[in-house]
């Protein structure tokens, strides 16, 4: 509660939270927010600039860009949030095991993580999606695989210092099982780092999803994705720049809010600062 109040002191943080809240509600109720059917074509109004009827203008098939953006937001939120959550779950588990037990297991897990870090995020995601096809589920799995090692390594680093604490040793002496110590003594003490890592990686997951969408490897068309909308717009940059402007701006706003929030959380939760 105290943390929350301190975050809310800065107006920029409030703006970020409000933006994230509206983005999430857009993702949950896209029908409520959109004014048109995102797939409905209207050849009477092709490439129209933004107006009161079409907030973000229309595309080359006369589809309402605003409604397409709202539905694109839904896909982005679903992909980014679920992939980061999966990565967080598995990465934390691996990091806990690796840091707590140490030894050969630790060496093995960290070596595999190192190999993952040799691949640029986007290249690895592209590779996985290329191999298994671009469905919503594969996209989530691909991004989750890419981000798991990041969580694993961050958590392992914190676990290494937390496990040296006296309360961990005391608990061990009292006969607690390793699982119990990891879940009830170590995990709560790395939770603040986990929250910060989650927020920052969530924002990059949005960017990765958008980039894959731009490259045509997100959810297949005609379903709109934010990155895909910008890709579609590149052919009309001279005649209808709004087609690229709005979906890109929405991605930027989402990532910006998450970055602001991440910075605020880090300032509060990181004991080193």
């Amino acid at each position, binding site marked *: 509660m105290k943390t929350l109040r301190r975050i809310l002191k800065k107006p920029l943080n409030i703006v970020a939270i409000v933006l994230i809240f509206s983005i999430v509600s857009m993702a949950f109720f896209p029908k409520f927010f959109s004014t048109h059917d995102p797939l409905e074509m209207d050849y009477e109004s092709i490439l129209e600039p933004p107006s009161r009827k079409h907030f973000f203008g229309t595309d080359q098939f006369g589809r309402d860009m605003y409604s397409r953006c709202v539905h694109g937001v839904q896909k982005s939120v679903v992909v980014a949030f679920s992939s980061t959550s999966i990565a967080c779950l598995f990465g934390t588990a691996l990091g806990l095991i690796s840091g707590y037990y140490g030894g050969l297991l630790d060496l093995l897990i960290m*070596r*595999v993580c*190192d*190999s*993952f*870090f*040799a*691949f*640029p*995020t*986007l*290249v*690895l995601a*592209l*590779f*996985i*999606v*290329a*191999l*298994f096809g671009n469905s919503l589920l594969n996209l989530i799995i691909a991004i989750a695989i890419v981000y798991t090692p990041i969580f694993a390594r961050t958590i392992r680093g914190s676990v290494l210092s937390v496990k040296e604490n006296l309360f961990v040793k005391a608990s061990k002496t009292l006969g607690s099982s390793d699982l119990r110590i990891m879940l009830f003594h170590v995990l709560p003490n790395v939770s603040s780092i986990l929250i910060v890592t989650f927020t920052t990686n969530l*924002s990059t997951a949005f*960017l990765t999803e*958008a*980039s894959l969408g*731009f*490259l*045509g*490897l997100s959810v297949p068309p005609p379903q709109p994705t934010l*990155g895909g909308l*910008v*890709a579609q*717009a*590149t052919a009309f*940059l*001279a005649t209808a*720049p709004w087609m*690229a*402007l709005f979906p*890109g*701006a929405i*991605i*930027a*706003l989402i*990532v*910006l809010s998450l*970055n*602001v929030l991440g910075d605020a959380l880090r300032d509060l939760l990181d004991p080193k600062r």
Partner: protein
Amino acid sequence: MTLGYVLRRIIVSVPTVLLVVLMVFVAIHLVPGTAVDMMLGTQNYLTEDQIRQLYHQYGLDKPLVVQYFAWLKNTLSFNFGVSLRTGKPVLQLILSRLPVTLELAALSMAIALTLGIVLGVVSAVKRNGFIDDIIKVFSLIGISSPAFWIGSIFIVLFSGLFRGFNIFGYVPIDRDLLKNLQSMLLPSLTLGLMICAQIVRVTRASMLDVLRQEYIKTAMAKGVSRTVLIFKHALKNALIPVVTVSGIQLGYLIGGTIVIENLFALPGLGRLLLQAVNERDYPVVQSIVLFVAIMIVALNILIDFVYTLLDPRVELK
């Protein structure tokens, strides 16, 4: 001693590279169907016997372990196989596209480092001032915006402001240097600004850390001029985290080239990769992914080496 260090670093990264190779191999073999199936597609006019012969020719009838070591041997001797779609050797394809990507990466990194370090220093020196605020907002927008969006905005702006400016397409560097640079301007500016945003943030934080230290106060008390103080005493020590972050940004840079090359229609490695992905040309995809991974491992060794140039206290162990 340095040579010994480099050798040791290379030996240490061998397991990483081998794991990378193994991972790519396993990933490719998780996909249902073999290279021959891909080549034949859905329209198959070959007899069973001919197909068996094809399998034999590509060594696909051997056990997986044998296939792996054959592939490993080929890969490590830079024999990446043949593209399923064009029939050309993959290495030749990669090498023909590589200069474009390398030029884009080098120009972007140059822009990012120059602008990033300058802005970061200014931001730190004028801490909490008006200029600092502007630079902070600029870098926050930079790290939050997708590269293809910033690139699109640049295209709209440039095509509106400068008619006749050659935005798309690529002119080889040996044909016309000026035209080449013109075709590279927007792509490298876009990518450079994205990475610049990260570098500004690190430079600022690192400079602030250094400026707080005692030796800076001593130097100031001695009457060292402001310029010398900032650039010689402070910046040199502040650069180490910047080098680390630049190293981390390499991966982002490579990922960024894929997006930027596709936006600006540059015939680089990233465009080749996407094309191969869309055509399910697996030998090309796996080779590029491997090539990039090995390149990143190599560049990371190089970056470790740069540390020692900046700070002699860093021991190469």
